[in-house]
């Protein structure tokens, strides 16, 4: 990589079309990942194993939703569209989130017979969270200054989330045989999608070439190393290389779960997107 320019503002970024494209592609991945997983978190409201956890889980979903809002607002600043429209009016094929975050919480609707899987919620949040930490740390060195700035802010909050998930993982892994079995099943399920998290999409070369974030292989290596240490500390066997779903979310390929999620989360806004809500 040659001499990298540091871009301080949206206006400056917009002077270079290729740079802007790479930045927009990356921002959609960051925004959509947090947005969709926060949406899944919001579906858990009122259904967590105990009231204290309901409050904690919701608070973390809000932080995540807050992060998504910051990314969508950065996209708005780059002239891509209104943040609310970006979140609620795009078709599934325009979403760039990894498949892992769009998977439903379990069978049933959030309001009608939700058979939600707490073990899956814990493992997904934690595995995603560990990857997010690596991604944010890499963004601290991003060529786009506004990204480094908000990443620093997000990391502070995010470390608390990781501590919370770590406690859960340790507890479930070392309690009853039933909990252990459910946890292992959840790990297998999460692991079959998790490999996509460090995929930077079809425009990856440009994204890393402009120094927006480190290379996929680097992110992946750090994330797997840290995750492995955590699994070992919790007495969990290491599931090996993570897999990926047959759809590639980073390229706009998605499952029916996302289509349904988008229909729900935009239901009211779509009544009249021009109205003020």
């Amino acid at each position, binding site marked *: 990589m040659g001499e990298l320019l540091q871009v301080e503002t949206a206006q400056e970024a917009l002077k270079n079309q290729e740079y802007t494209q790479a930045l927009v592609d990356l921002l959609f991945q960051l925004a959509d990942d947090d947005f969709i997983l926060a*949406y899944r978190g*919001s*579906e858990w*409201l*009122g*259904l*967590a*194993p*105990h*009231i*204290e956890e*309901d*409050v904690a889980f*919701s*608070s973390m*979903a*809000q932080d995540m*939703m*807050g992060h*998504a*809002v910051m990314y*969508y607002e950065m996209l708005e600043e780059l002239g891509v569209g209104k*943040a*609310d429209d970006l*979140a*609620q009016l795009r078709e599934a094929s325009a979403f760039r989130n990894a498949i892992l975050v769009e998977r439903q919480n379990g069978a049933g609707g*959030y*309001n009608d*017979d*939700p*058979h*939600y899987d*707490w073990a899956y919620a814990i493992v997904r949040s934690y595995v995603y969270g560990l990857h997010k930490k690596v991604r944010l740390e890499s963004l601290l060195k991003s060529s786009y200054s506004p990204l480094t700035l908000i990443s620093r802010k997000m990391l502070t909050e995010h470390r608390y989330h990781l501590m919370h998930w770590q406690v859960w993982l*340790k*507890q*479930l892994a*070392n*309690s*009853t045989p*039933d*909990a252990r079995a*459910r946890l292992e099943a959840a790990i297998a399920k999460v692991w079959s999608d998790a490999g996509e998290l460090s995929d930077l999409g079809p425009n990856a070369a440009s994204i890393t070439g402009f120094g927006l974030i480190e290379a996929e292989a680097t992110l992946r290596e750090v994330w797997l190393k840290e995750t492995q240490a955590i699994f070992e500390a919790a007495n969990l066997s290491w599931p090996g290389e993570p897999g990926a779903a047959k759809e590639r979310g980073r390229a706009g390929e998605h499952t029916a779960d996302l289509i349904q999620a988008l229909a*729900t*989360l935009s*239901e*009211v*806004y779509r*009544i*009249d997107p021009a*109205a*003020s*809500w």
Partner: protein
Amino acid sequence: MNTQLEHSDLTEDAKMEAFLAKIDRGEKIEADDWMPDDYRNQLIKLISMHGISEIMGALPEKEWVPKAPTLRRKLAIMAKVQDEMGHGQLLLRVAEDLIAPLGKTREDIMQDLFAGRLKFHNVFHMEAPTWADAGVIGWLVDGAAIITQSMSLDTSYAPYARALHRICAEEKFHAQHGESIVLELAEGTEEQRQMLQESITRWWPSLLMFFGPPENGNITSNQASNMRYKIRSQTNEELRQIFLKKYLPRIFHLGFTVPDETIYFDEAEDKWIYQQPDWEEFKQIVKGKGPRSAHRLHLREMSYEETKWVRDAILSYGRQVG
């Protein structure tokens, strides 16, 4: 009363006298202080019902959390409903301390709820079919809750008073949150205004019922003893009038109506004269026969049962490490 009092009875009487003198001086009772069984039972009933109402009260709005129409609203309603769960948590902790001497735990409270022995507020049995309901609940239901809870801020039971101080501070934000949704709809398109009007109409009888039946001069023994114990200080009707005086002018000012053609303010009496809701229906609703009672109880019970393995795991882990 028996004329030949046992010594222990005298002691109980003396304790009771000292207890009443204490609350009359405006002093507060703490969880570990001696209290009459009747006082404890009234508190358990009141606080567990309040706590469970917060938790069941999260459910109608929860229906709208994933659907909130803008990113800002999504964040705000998530925070609001989280607060309600937090209120439930605070109150259940107060209730837990009160039931502990009776050998009971939170599990008993939950089982009482599922079995229909523990009631929750009438409003949370009702349907919330549109986004406007999310606004009206925040604006008017939380607004009504502020009125009843403010009355209890000075309750003689200190742990309840402390919880209420925190809760009331948050309820004010909830009412603002609700009002903000409502104002946006009120200033919006014809469709949005209609959605809001339908919601106000739908919630009106429930809002009147919220404060309980009017006493018409006949205060129930329950109310009387709660007033004697300084657990509450105002009657149902007094509280309802505060609500009507505060909110009816605002509803009318925004150009909306309530489904009561003869309602008027009697200047001489200084009160709103309104048509009574169906109090027989109210009884049925709080018995668990409201339009959404079964659905919400099922949701609560099912999620509780399906996460039992998690609570078992936490207990087991606690025993191992601890």
